[in-house]
């Protein structure tokens, strides 16, 4: 058994070694994919090790070197980070299986570069998860942005270039333009950027004074990956990437790194109580609430499935920001649970979208009517995922909503409860309608014949599904959505230290 202290550096290095192996095995695709999967398994084992240690109350960590006084590159595991690392590494493994099916069925180019970038990105996500201070978090945040750029521009055509430009432009502009000054400002006030239980700035309230609200705003919009409106345009534009990229990076690793950072900053830099007392987070709570509704409204008008899912993600990410900005224990708890629940749910939806594209080359929702009858497994999984996003029991997604409403009640913000209810109704309309139409309505043109590369698909009579590697992963995560509903109590107890309990 590897000690948890050693597991963190290993979790950072293993994907990079995997990246090297993928590069060396460029010529033999099977071995190359084996390298990805083996790396994934080892990484998952490592993060689970850390997760177990954290659940027993340990806080393993280590310091690499001190770059400037009070500014070391250092790592430390705590519940939120351990949770994010387990989700990211676990879903990376699932997604790698899915990628193999998707990329091969679509005969995509540059697959080696694709898997290499993925490996670097996951290493960066792990770095974000275990960062012990803002400086380290910022480093890996930027690595994550840069390493996913080749994935977004994978197709290399004009549309991909445009998407890539917006992706990099928004993420770099917000992070360098707002997040970096915010971190430096924090450093000037506190002399360090370490994450501290109870809040680093809570000890320097006098120095920060009335500017706390401005500082919080710099963080909220500076972390562009959290896609709080109006810092969201990069996310819909990132949808030019192949679907596995959208499924994993733009539903799990990249966006969750953003909201994870927001939660972490609220808990460990500002301190929930201190924020609650100053009321500095209230304006941002309303911005998040507005972002939830507005993004849902935009999502309703999207006929492209991936675009609709992207706007749904913008909306769902704001739940987490909202939970943080409520500045109550239950709000934070709801936000933390939403990280896990939304990751499973949204990834299922994206993988289903990819499966539909592989099997039938359809991207528009209006063309998917009646498709459920030939792809029952895909749309079944989609249905479960969508239910979870809406927040219906017995799906994992119902818990975060429950805790967020509790948090809103604690904060005395009853209007927020109304926002949450409206949002769930909107979700029903624009997400559940897709499988319902697919199952119950007749095809628009009566033509649902597979058009992709022939022979790669399951074709049993009326059943025309995507290859097994493309439908097994979404079904697996859909099952996970149900399972998580019943295992929420251990998760709750695991996360208790975040809000000072446990």
């Amino acid at each position, binding site marked *: 058994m590897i000690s948890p202290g050693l597991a963190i550096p290993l979790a950072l290095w293993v994907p990079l070694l995997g990246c090297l192996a993928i590069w060396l095995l460029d010529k033999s695709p099977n071995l190359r994919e084996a390298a990805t999967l083996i790396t994934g398994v080892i990484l998952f084992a490592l993060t689970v090790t850390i997760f177990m240690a954290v659940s027993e109350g340990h806080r393993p960590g280590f310091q690499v*070197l001190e*770059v*400037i006084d009070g*500014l070391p*590159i250092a790592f430390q595991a705590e519940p939120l980070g351990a949770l994010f690392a387990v989700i990211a590494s676990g879903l990376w493994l699932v997604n790698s299986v899915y990628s193999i099916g998707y990329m091969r069925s679509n005969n995509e180019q540059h697959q080696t570069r694709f898997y290499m970038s993925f490996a670097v990105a996951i290493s960066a996500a792990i770095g974000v998860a275990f960062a012990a201070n803002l*400086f380290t978090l*910022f*480093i890996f945040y*930027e690595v994550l942005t*840069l390493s996913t750029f*080749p994935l977004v*521009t994978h197709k*290399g055509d004009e549309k*991909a*270039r445009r998407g*890539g*430009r917006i992706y*990099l*432009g928004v993420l*770099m*502009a917000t992070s*360098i*333009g*707002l997040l*970096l*000054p915010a971190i*430096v*400002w924090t*450093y*000037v006030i506190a002399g360090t950027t370490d994450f501290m239980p109870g809040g680093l700035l809570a000890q320097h309230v006098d120095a920060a004074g009335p500017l706390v609200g401005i500082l919080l705003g710099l963080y909220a919009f500076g972390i562009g990956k959290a896609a709080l409106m109006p810092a969201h345009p990069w996310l819909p534009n990132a949808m030019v990437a192949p679907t596995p990229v959208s499924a994993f990076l733009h539903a799990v690793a990249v966006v969750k790194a953003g909201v994870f950072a927001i939660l972490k900053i609220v808990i460990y830099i500002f301190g929930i109580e201190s924020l609650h007392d100053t009321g500095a987070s209230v304006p941002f709570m309303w911005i998040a609430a507005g972002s939830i509704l507005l993004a849902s409204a935009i999502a309703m008008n999207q006929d492209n499935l991936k675009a609709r899912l992207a706007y749904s993600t913008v909306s769902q990410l704001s739940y987490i920001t909202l939970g943080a900005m409520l500045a109550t224990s239950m709000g934070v708890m709801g936000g933390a649970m939403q990280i896990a629940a939304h990751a499973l749910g949204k990834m299922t939806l994206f993988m289903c979208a990819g499966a539909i594209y592989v099997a039938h080359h359809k991207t528009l929702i209006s063309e998917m009517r009646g498709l459920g009858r030939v792809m029952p497994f895909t749309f079944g999984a989609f249905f479960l995922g969508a239910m979870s996003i809406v927040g219906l029991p017995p799906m994992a997604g119902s818990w975060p909503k429950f805790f967020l409403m509790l948090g809103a009640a604690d904060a005395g913000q009853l209007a927020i409860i109304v926002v949450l209810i409206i949002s769930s109704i909107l979700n029903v309309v624009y997400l559940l309608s897709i499988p319902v139409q697919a199952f119950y309505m007749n095809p628009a043109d009566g033509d649902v014949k597979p058009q992709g590369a022939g022979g790669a698909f399951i074709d049993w009579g009326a059943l025309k599904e995507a290859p097994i590697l493309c439908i097994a992963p979404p079904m697996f995560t859909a099952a996970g959505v149900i399972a998580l509903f019943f295992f929420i109590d251990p998760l709750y107890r695991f996360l208790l230290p975040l809000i000072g309990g446990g």
Partner: protein
Amino acid sequence: MNLAEQLPVLPVIIPLVAAPITLLLPQGRAPHLWATLISWLTFAASIALVRMVNDTGLISYHLGDWAPPLGIEYRIDLANALVLALVSGIASVVFAFAYRSVRVEVDPRQSTFFYCAMLICLTGLMGVTITGDAFNVFVFLEISSLSTYALIAMGANRDRRALTSSFNYLVMGTIGATFFVIGIGLLYQATGTLNMADLHDRLAGQSNRMVEAGFAFIVVGIGLKLAMFPLHLWLPNAYTYAPSAVSAFIAATATKVAVYVLIRFFYSVFGFDFAFVGHAFTYVLLPLGLAGMFIASLVALFQDDVKRMLAYSSVAQIGYMLLGLSFATVEGLTASLVHVLNHALMKGALFMAVACVVFRTGSHSLQAFAGLAKRMPVTTWAFILSGLSLIGVPLTVGFISKWYLLTAAFAAGHGYAAFLIVASSLIALVYIGRVAEMMLLREPPSEGPYAIPLKEAPLSMLIPMWVLVAANVYFGVRTDLTGDLATRAAEALMLAAGGAP
């Protein structure tokens, strides 16, 4: 007489004596090897000097054993020891790099003169940095400038516009030098001395028109040399049409030395007793630094010539250094010094990468960079990494510079300046991004003047370039050599200047 005692003079004497010897060498490889060897020796001497200053503190060396203030004094503290190491370090990398690049870009009959002029330029820059005598600064400044005019003109072999650029620089540079020497003259009239330390003592309490005029002449004169916006007009053409190796060398050193001279005059000659210094910070350096950061960056955005783009970027980066200075705090001065060092590393690497592209494609227009990642991946990645450093991405020196600058801005109560600094870095993101996109996402042209076969630049160019790129990363995570020494240098300078104004 032992060597250690004479060490302070070596960084100037070695290249000075070696330069004319270059002319006696046969054409071909020999002048290049000789110049490279000399630059390495100079670098070694500078490193030894840094260690010595670090151990024993201020060194005062009396040239020819004539005691100051009458004799010329070499006065070395941490600030100029660092700049000496920087200039000679860049020289030792660029000289090693130059051979193949110079062979295609400079008339072969001139190559001996080329290396001779490079060594003279190095001598001049080292001399400016090391000396403790105000008039001596002028002499060495002219030595370096005159050789630079010649070096830029040698670009005429490839593009005749180098001649007008060089002439332009000659006119502007001479005006700058004249202003500078007039300023020195006025100070001499007021005090009767040329030694900097002595000037500082005798200027204390003096605040008459003559000294003020002298101050103004000196600031404008050096402002021209360091391309302080809006006195930068000579720079873009000079950097663009000079031979690539020359661009890399002077972009990384010449303006940095001028910034150092400005710091030296502000802090060690005038000091904060002299009210004009405070005014110059608030009303000249701060607004001009900010304006340069933005206007030059915006101009860089619209350049279709990568070298010219980098040249405008240099003007913008000088804005950062002036901004740091203008805060008039230890943190601000540290940030300026650190950025002087760091910017040299990134610009040197960027210009070397462009030199590699010029070597293969014969052009530094943006079009020549299309699809470069497929043909010259090693060069492409060197450019991208140094470009990221210019933007200020973490784990590169650019980030360290930004960090020091932002901390200084917040600590000095200039919070708005912090946001202007990052806003201007975002413009850098766009102009570097344009080139990066060209290299990574375009297909290489299959016909036309840039359709060249897949071929990387030769190793003799790649290795020195990557040494600088590696330095960009190394000093991006280890700041005990740059940041810590710069902090101590800044503290010492601040103490000598008599605290904050």
